[in-house]
């Protein structure tokens, strides 16, 4: 019988713990597919964050390291410097990457550290039960912004891709979403490119994936996907923010 669909080899058999309707599962799969297609599983080391995807180390079949909250880019820097021939990626959420770990993120980017960063932006702290994130939208109700994010007192969301693309360092920065098939296909392409760049020694490649959190957003999975389309993407426009190689080719 012909196999028409199977789990990527780069994922283990451990059942994912994510909530129904959470898009972490899709993103895990896209990362694993990219690893499979590039044939790099045996030399890949992943770095898991603190947050909902903390146990990503159980799900990816490659060697894995669990980092302290926000420190994944620094840990990945150590790994890559010690193992320059290996492929190193981090998988981080918005609180991890854009709040507590912002310094590590910016500096790994500006060093053009030859690593791949998968940044899952769902505008909330999921694991701790739905607190305001650096990427929570203006007016967004969370446990710690119960009257809605008030930009006058807590400031504005951070557009990470736009911000990092102002640096000279990074090689590739793209924002994608996984709320429909078309966007998932584009996300797959971006993630694979972010790994391919590392294989080719090009440098820091970050893919920001606009994601969902139906549980903490208080929405059904279906409504959450609609919220991504209606609220998230307008604030976080999809697209390539930086692609140094492409720019060079144009010139």
């Amino acid at each position, binding site marked *: 019988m012909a196999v028409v669909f199977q789990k990527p080899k780069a994922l283990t058999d451990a059942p994912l713990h994510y909530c129904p309707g959470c898009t972490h599962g899709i993103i895990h799969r896209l990362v694993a597919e990219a690893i499979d297609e590039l044939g790099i599983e045996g030399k890949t080391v992943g770095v898991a964050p603190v947050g909902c995807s903390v146990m990503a180390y159980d799900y990816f079949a490659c060697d894995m*390291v*669990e980092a302290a909250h926000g420190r994944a880019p*620094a*840990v990945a820097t*150590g790994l890559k410097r*010690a193992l320059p021939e290996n492929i190193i990626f981090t998988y981080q959420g918005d609180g991890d990457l854009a709040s507590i770990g912002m*310094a*590590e993120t910016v*500096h790994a980017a500006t060093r053009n550290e030859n690593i791949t960063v998968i940044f899952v932006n769902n505008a909330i702290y999921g694991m701790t039960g739905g607190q305001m994130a650096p990427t929570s939208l203006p007016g967004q109700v969370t446990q710690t912004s119960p009257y809605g994010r008030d930009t006058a007192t807590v400031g504005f969301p951070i557009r990470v891709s736009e911000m990092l693309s102002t640096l000279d360092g990074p090689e590739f920065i793209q924002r994608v979403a996984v709320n429909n098939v078309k966007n998932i296909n584009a996300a797959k392409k971006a993630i694979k490119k972010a790994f391919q760049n590392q294989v080719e020694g090009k440098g820091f490649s970050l893919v920001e994936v606009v994601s969902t959190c139906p549980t903490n957003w208080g929405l059904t999975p279906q409504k959450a996907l609609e919220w991504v389309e209606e609220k998230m993407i307008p604030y976080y426009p999809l697209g390539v923010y930086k692609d140094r190689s492409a720019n060079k080719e144009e010139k």
Partner: protein
Amino acid sequence: MAEKVLMKGNEAIAEAAIRAGCMHYFGYPITPQTEIAAYMAKRMPKIGGVFLQAESEIAAINMVYGVAGTGFRVMTSSSSPGISLKGEGISYLAGADLPALIVNVQRGGPGLGGIQPSQSDYFQATRGLGHGDFHLIVMAPASVQEMADMTAKCFDLSDKYRVPAMILADGTLGQMMEPVVLPEPTEYKPDKPWAVTGTNCERKHNIINSLYLKPEELEKTNFERFERYKAIEENEPLWEEFMMDDAEICVAAFGIAARVSKNAIMAAREKGIKVGMIRPITLWPFPKKPFKAAADKCKAFISVELSMGQMIEDVQLATECKVPVTLCNRAGGMIPSPEEVLEAIERAAGGNK
């Protein structure tokens, strides 16, 4: 015999680390240890090693965590305020059972404190360098020669027990130059089956981790780790005894305080006072045995420290409070003079007559 060279303590640590096969260094500038970073910045690129000035102490220790996971020898260095920042990462190293070397060239505190030498991070190093139940192997050099020798020793012990190790020095030892015979260079080839180097699709994945959500599993890791600590406490305490054979008064001092105390002890001996010194070389494990033995024959102990009195608690514990332990100390970057220590010895000698 290898050639004696003149080096600063900080430089001796850096060169000895390289000779111990440490090819990865991550740090952040802070007085009075910056010579270590500067030395590494100069040498590492020439020998194919890695020097990286991190964006913060926090990033530096996490870079160390990354390299340690691959099995290679790795180190960072800082001074007191910077070590506080590294505390989180050190706890993670301990929790993930990763070997690494952390150097603390201490300065006065708390807070931003000052930049002059101090020993006020003794508690931090031996008790609480981060959250959770854990220890570091802590060695306290007292000369530039020991700065070099203990660097190599720390790497060996850290690898042997999978426990991070610390050199607890101070600004004086870091800045001073003395003749030193450097250890012979060795090439370090990691042989660590737990390391993350890529599965090569030939084995189950390795995971470097300190997260155990099931308390019974986390408890098990703690008990297992403390078995190793027990072995370290049994096998690895190091100390020096100075003029202890007939001593009635025992000075306890480590690092630079022990150097100052030696002068005072010589002067006291000239005055006919029978005084000696036990100098802990490992601060954790603390050398309890010699203190316990000395408590049976000495009438008084004096803990000489560049702090408000921290090691004194270990001396009291090790001597089981059988005899009085007094404190002779300066703090905030000040160093007790040999005269001050001599006075303390004379007080101890006179007081119990």
